[in-house]
């Protein structure tokens, strides 16, 4: 949205462009007394009279010359002026040329006939000319309208977005109608006046605009509804739907516009309506594309989630039915299965919730000081079952600085890496967890790394191992392919990063990076 100052600049700019169209429009609306035409009439009749004075023709010949003059004039001037020309010619002919010269004479029958012809010719010629000129004018207006709409279409087509296009359209309208314009549009936030408008809409006009939009009928000045209002409101209607209102504030001294001029305004409104509709359709198209994409993701998620849910549920149900069995060893085995199934469900739900937190943008990491050894302990405790039977080696230097991180997120990320290592390596293969401080990309950082002795990163996953629903080709069943994507999301949320690479000597390694922060002084109390 443009601030008000910019609007004023726009409006000034619009006025500067009001050149050819503005003047012509104004002239047609304010009908003036045709001085030029009367002047022409008197000059022509006067010239004919003056020239005739020195000509040795009979007065009858002058009658024909006057008639010719009236005929010529009837092609050039309006109805009333040509009638005046006929009358003046009649008087001049009678007074100047009809004997006795320079006095009014009694008319003979033939002369009366000639005078009658003057009037008849003047009336018929004037009428014909008026019709021709009206047609001409209409033609010119049609052309001007076509040109205006063409210019509008061209300007609007070149605009990079709807706001710019609308601003351009309003500027053109200002110049063409010699008026100020504004645009009421239906937006997500409600019905608002577009910032490109060149006049400030008061409360009354706001209400009238709303009325026009709701009733899909023009309202305000020059209309049947609220004609005392100073602004003309034209609804932007497409397919019976009201998209907005085009409001035009003409100069106060204008009389009613002609049908043709109204048509031009309506044409403008229609163009703007098209523009708005086009934008709406484009947005709807984009939304649809987005829906289709998220729908695809949803289906993928739902397919794998329902599969992942059904497996432990099937175990729980079957085990539940058999728990009443007498066989003690069977019961112990079933209890183990139940525990395994619930753990799997718990992990699944946790990952889904985390993914959702990441995607909905509600994740607000609460960074605080923490001891990386605590993080490792908690992550190991959470994954103790999955890593049972493996040797886990820790390499944490004594002087490791405190990490500034969100503890639950960090623990979850680390636990996901440990689970990932457990999932992708042979049972019993060792896992190394190390932490430290390093300079990376010119920044002081701390890191914690999980390295395994498995097959390493599969080639297909090397580029984007942190994408959602990506699972290694050789991965064992189980898991949604969400774990690493969550790790990635959590690390980015904390201002850190996660990288994947090859563990020297075989296997994969994942490293969680965080910026190193210096904490404030710790009070000392040596006794």
């Amino acid at each position, binding site marked *: 949205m443009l601030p008000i100052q910019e609007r004023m600049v726009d409006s000034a700019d619009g006025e500067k462009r009001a050149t050819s169209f503005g003047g012509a429009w104004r002239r047609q609306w304010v009908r003036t007394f045709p001085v030029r035409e009367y002047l022409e009439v008197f000059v022509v009749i006067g010239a004919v009279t003056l020239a005739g004075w020195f000509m040795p023709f009979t007065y009858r010949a002058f009658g024909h010359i006057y008639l010719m003059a009236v005929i010529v004039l009837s092609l050039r001037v309006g109805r009333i002026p040509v009638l005046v020309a006929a009358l003046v010619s009649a008087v001049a002919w009678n007074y100047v040329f009809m004997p006795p010269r320079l006095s009014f004479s009694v008319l003979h029958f033939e002369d009366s006939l000639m005078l009658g012809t003057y009037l008849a010719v003047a009336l018929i010629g004037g009428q014909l000319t008026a019709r021709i000129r009206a047609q001409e004018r209409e033609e010119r207006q049609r052309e001007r309208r076509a040109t205006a709409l063409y210019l509008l279409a061209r300007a609007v087509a070149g605009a990079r977005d709807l706001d710019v296009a609308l601003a351009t359209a309003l500027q053109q309208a200002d110049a063409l109608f010699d008026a100020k314009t504004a645009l009421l549009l239906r937006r997500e936030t409600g019905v608002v006046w577009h910032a490109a408008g060149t006049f400030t809409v008061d409360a009354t006009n706001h209400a009238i605009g709303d009325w026009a939009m709701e009733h899909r009928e023009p309202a305000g000045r020059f209309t049947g509804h609220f004609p005392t209002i100073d602004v003309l409101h034209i609804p932007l209607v497409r397919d019976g739907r009201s998209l907005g209102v085009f409001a035009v504030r003409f100069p106060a001294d204008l009389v009613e516009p002609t049908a043709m001029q109204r048509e031009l305004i309506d044409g403008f409104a229609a163009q703007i309506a098209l523009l708005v509709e086009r934008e709406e359709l484009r947005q709807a198209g984009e939304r649809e594309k987005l829906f289709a994409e998220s729908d695809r993701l949803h289906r993928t998620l739902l397919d794998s989630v329902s599969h992942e849910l059904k497996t432990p549920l099937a175990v729980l149900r079957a085990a539940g039915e058999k728990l009443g069995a007498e066989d003690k060893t069977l019961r112990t085995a079933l209890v183990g299965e139940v525990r395994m199934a*619930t753990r799997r469900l*718990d992990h699944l*739900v*946790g990952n889904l*919730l985390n993914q959702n*937190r990441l995607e909905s943008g509600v994740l607000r990491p*609460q960074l*605080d*000081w*923490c*001891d990386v*050894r*605590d993080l490792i*302990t*908690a992550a*190991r*405790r959470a994954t103790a079952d999955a890593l049972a039977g493996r040797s886990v080696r*820790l390499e944490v230097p004594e002087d490791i600085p*405190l990490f500034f991180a*969100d*503890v*639950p997120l960090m*623990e979850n990320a680390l636990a996901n890496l440990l689970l990932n290592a457990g999932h992708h390596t042979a049972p019993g293969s060792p896992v190394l967890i190390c932490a430290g401080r390093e300079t990376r990309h010119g920044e002081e950082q701390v890191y914690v790394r999980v390295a395994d002795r498995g097959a390493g990163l599969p080639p297909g996953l090397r580029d984007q191992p942190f994408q959602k629903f990506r699972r290694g080709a050789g991965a064992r069943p189980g898991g949604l392919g969400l774990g690493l994507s969550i790790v990635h999301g959590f690390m980015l949320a904390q201002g850190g990063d996660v990288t994947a690479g090859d563990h020297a000597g075989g296997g994969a390694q994942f490293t969680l990076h965080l910026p190193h922060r210096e*904490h*404030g002084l*710790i*009070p000392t*109390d*040596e*006794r």
Partner: protein
Amino acid sequence: MSVESTKPHVLVIDDEVQIRRLLRLTLAEAGYSVREAETGRDGLDEAHRQAPDAVILDLGLPDLTGVDVLNSLRETNAVPVLVLSVFGQESSKVAALDAGADDYLTKPFGSAELLARLRALLRRIKPAVATNTFHFGAVEVDFTRRRVTREGKAVRLTSMEYSLLQLFITHRDKVLTHRQILCELWGPKAEGHTHYLRTYMMRLRRKIEGEVESSSFFQTESGIGYRFVSEP
């Protein structure tokens, strides 16, 4: 101490009927007598009426927040409270602990874990044997002489480290939030200075437990605080 003829009373306040049923089964089998309440208000009424020995309080009640229930309860009653929360309720968990809850469990939890926590809570309210020393593991703390020994050898603690240890022993088996510890040792101004605590915990663990991978006496409760367990 001899076992009282009456079983310890546990009041369960949870709106989920299945959780109540499960808790009743688990607790009854372990020798507790169980009362149930479905809402926070019912729970408070019940607590006033029959003075339970421990309360298990769910944080997702329909009528009152966990902090509301705890505040009302604590007006009249010092009964140990174990709060139950679900994933994602970290902040309400900390708020409940700050408001006087003694411990927490995150759903889903195992019954063994629940019973262990409950036992620890009930142990705490038993009259402490008036001794001047306290033992845990190979460590002996002499309160009168403010001396700590490990395997018979003296452990040199700074006064702040000693205060920290003493705080943990006083509130053993109970979760202490960062805020509670920081306020107690460094005053209310130090509330957000978690790095004090992390640094001192690192030193205390090193001196008391030596270089062990994961501390067993001083347990870190992620994002919440610490728990001192004298009999891990």
